[in-house]
């Protein structure tokens, strides 16, 4: 019941996003110009017959004479069946283009998030259990540094140090097998994960410090349980809320980050595709990416909400 309710809310969000994106793309540029170049804007009287025919044909192929809402409805209908249309650039089906480029970007995002969580959780537990002592204070400086450094600078730094100077990691993306994929994506994933690690560590540390002052922690200690048991088995789970919330929200921001990273490391992912498409006003591609990102964002945040109720049985899945 809850899931159905959330899914329908989710559908509305996605619809709204696609509508806004479709409207923006149509209002900001004339599709014909993108398709046919200057002839679309020239006075029809100056055109040759061939050109005029091209124009009419294009209008018919892309239904450009229909009103805006009809076109949106048609696009939406096609999109639901998985038909995102063809790219203006090379007439390739957008679906194929996305299918080629999405997996590596998804891989990179999951990689970065996993890396961030695996590093941030133990780090936060360590600092919270030693709050305001030397290790914690040093951690604060480090994590603010990680938050402060812009991705583009970090990318250059990592690339220079680990790929060029010490040559530990390859300079180019290598997709020959899973091992080399993981290895060659390590630096890009670190670059994406760095601000996430710091964010998660700060949030979890703060929540843990307040959880550690709860009575039930004193009760657990009074039962003679070990420090590790108290930290990981009692304190961690009720402290994960803020981190989890930001984890969900970050999913959108990560796409933005991956544009820079993919560009720099030459990874043929969706980030690069969308940059190229935006520059060329290739709006079937842009719209497809918008849809995918928004669906992903919404799905992950619904999952996060469901996770809340798993983390804390007092949270009920209704309302």
């Amino acid at each position, binding site marked *: 019941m809850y899931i159905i309710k959330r899914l329908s809310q989710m559908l509305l969000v996605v619809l709204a996003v696609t509508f806004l994106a479709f409207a923006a793309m149509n209002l900001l540029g004339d599709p014909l110009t993108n398709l046919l170049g200057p002839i679309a804007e020239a006075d029809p009287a100056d055109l040759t017959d061939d050109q005029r025919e091209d124009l009419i044909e294009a209008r018919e192929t892309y239904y450009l004479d229909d009103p805006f809402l009809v076109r949106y409805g048609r696009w939406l209908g096609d999109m639901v069946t998985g038909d995102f249309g063809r790219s203006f650039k090379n007439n390739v089906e957008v679906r194929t283009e996305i299918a080629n480029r999405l997996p590596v970007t998804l891989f990179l995002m999951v990689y970065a998030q996993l890396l961030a969580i695996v590093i941030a959780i133990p780090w936060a537990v360590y600092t919270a259990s030693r709050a305001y002592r030397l290790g914690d204070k040093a951690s604060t400086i480090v994590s603010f540094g990680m938050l402060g450094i812009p991705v583009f600078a970090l990318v250059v730094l990592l690339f220079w140090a680990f790929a060029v100077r010490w040559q530990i990691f390859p300079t180019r993306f290598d997709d020959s097998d899973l091992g080399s994929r993981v290895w060659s994506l390590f630096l890009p994933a670190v670059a994406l994960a760095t601000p996430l690690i710091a964010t998660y560590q700060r949030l979890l540390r703060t929540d843990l410090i307040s959880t550690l002052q*709860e*009575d*039930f922690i*004193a*009760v*657990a*200690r*009074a*039962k*003679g*349980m*070990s420090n590790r*048991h108290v930290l990981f*088995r*009692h304190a961690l*789970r*009720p402290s994960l809320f803020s981190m989890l919330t930001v984890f969900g929200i970050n999913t959108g921001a990560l796409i933005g980050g991956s544009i820079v990273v993919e560009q720099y490391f030459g990874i043929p992912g969706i980030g690069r595709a969308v940059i190229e498409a935006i520059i060329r006003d290739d709006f079937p591609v842009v719209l497809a990416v918008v849809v995918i990102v928004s669906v992903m964002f919404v799905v992950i945040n619904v999952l996060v909400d469901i996770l809340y109720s798993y*983390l*804390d*049985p*007092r949270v009920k899945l209704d309302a």
Partner: protein
Amino acid sequence: MADQPLLELNDLSVTFATPAGPVRAVKGLSLAVAPGRALGVVGESGSGKSVSMKAVMDLLPRSAQIDGEILFAGENVRAMSKDRMKHFHGVDIGMVFQNPMTSLNPVKRIGEQLTEGMRFHQGLSKTAANARAVELLDLVRLPKPDERIRQYPHELSGGMRQRVVIAMALANDPKLLIADEPTTALDVTVQREILDLLDTLREELNMAMILITHDLGVVSDRTDEVVVMFRGDTMETVETSQLFDDDRHSYTVSLRDAMPDITQSRDDNLEVAAEDAGRHADIPHLRDPEKAIIRVENLVVDYPAGRGVFRAVDRVSFDVYPGETLGIVGESGCGKSTTAKSIIRMPPPTSGRIWYEGTDLSSLSAEELRRKRADLQMIFQDPISSLNPRRSVWDIVREGVEIWGTSGVWSDARLVELLEQVGIDPKYRDRKPFEFSGGQCQRISIARALALDPKVLISDEPVSALDVSVQAQILELLDELKEQHALTMLFISHDLAVVRNIANRVMVMYFGRVVELGSTDAIFENAQHPYTRHLLSAVPGLEALGGLDSIAGGASSDGSWLDSERSAGQRSEEVPALVQCGPDHWVAEQ
């Protein structure tokens, strides 16, 4: 070796390093508890009673420096290895904490929390530990234990949770149980059940117990010996039987005197009436509904709960007369606060009518109601959180006057006078709330309420969060101010002794309904309803006063009415009618 003490503290001191310099929270505490005996540690907040036990349990922050000797069965606790220390905490000693609502991990099942200690310390298998957990829950008289272990803490009531905490403390058969204010957060009837349980278990398991409490009544019923502490110092150590003797330490005597006395009626109850019969019609046949300042008729308040509603207040009717203090008593969840607060429409009643000075409050527009609110002021339970921490005392007290503009009756000079009246030196008017103690904050709250020159003061548990000596001062202050400002007061409290000392009339509520209503003396000396008698019999310290008979006369408390109510699980459709049973005394039909 019955003579060897189980736990012995010799000259124990605890010092906290604070930015303002070292603070000595415990100064040279020495005590000993023998196997099977019960020791009470009594004191007000800041006495060091909890800190000393936390020192034993190694629960103090790193900024605490501990000096002195802690011996357990002759063994030096402070020299224990890490592993021995875990065993000492988990097996030798069981600890029960004050607040059952926060002592259990909200995200773990009861069973898991009960068994983890046993599995860790005794190496029991999961099945064996679960079987033992069921046994323990049965031992603490929790019904359906095998279902409980699969539940989460939030599915249990406060009293049930405290039983779980006790079961947890008993899991590894401790020789000593330390109970730190185990019943302070609980209702009085639940308090008695829990204390009875601790007594029985102590006997069954031959455990020693240290009972930490601020309540002299609680220790007087339950312990063999008492240590009285004040600001880190030990005042005296005394056999409980001699606790109320007259040659006690002056602090012990002052603590005892500050306790509201449930046997003592307000001596002015009738005098006032005689002096000022026009305003204060305390003689019942003179009481004329036309003169009531507040009339409540068939008040219903529903709260949304899940898909349905929870009826917090169910068709309650009563009158309040000018100049009187009406005490509203009952256990948590009985609707006493909701009833009083719905008079100022916070929350607005679901149905029913409320007249204030003849005006039906529900007929007023928002603006008219806002104007009336100046007449009806409130003070709250938690003095500190009810004051805005970022504003100065002066701003807090003046705010209402500013809102009401120049029509406000108070000039600055009168506000200064008001601060003096509540016992706050006006030269501190620029200070912020955190610079004051709880009692002082409550005084500021009172000044804030009085700044608007109200006619009615609704006091919601105004002294429950305060130490007993401070409580006595605030009650006295409220009483004085009531006279000076010609106030009518609704006084909500779970503490019957306090109500006896301040109220002229008392309304007893149970499960959203009125069960008994009458003059304070009638309720306390001649309680008719089984629920009222049940409440009265649960008051701690009653033993020392000669039991229920001495205060409520005659018939014993019979739990059967309550049992049948509870097992019914829901209210009868009809509200039992209130039947007059004395000159100023009504009781619900059963």
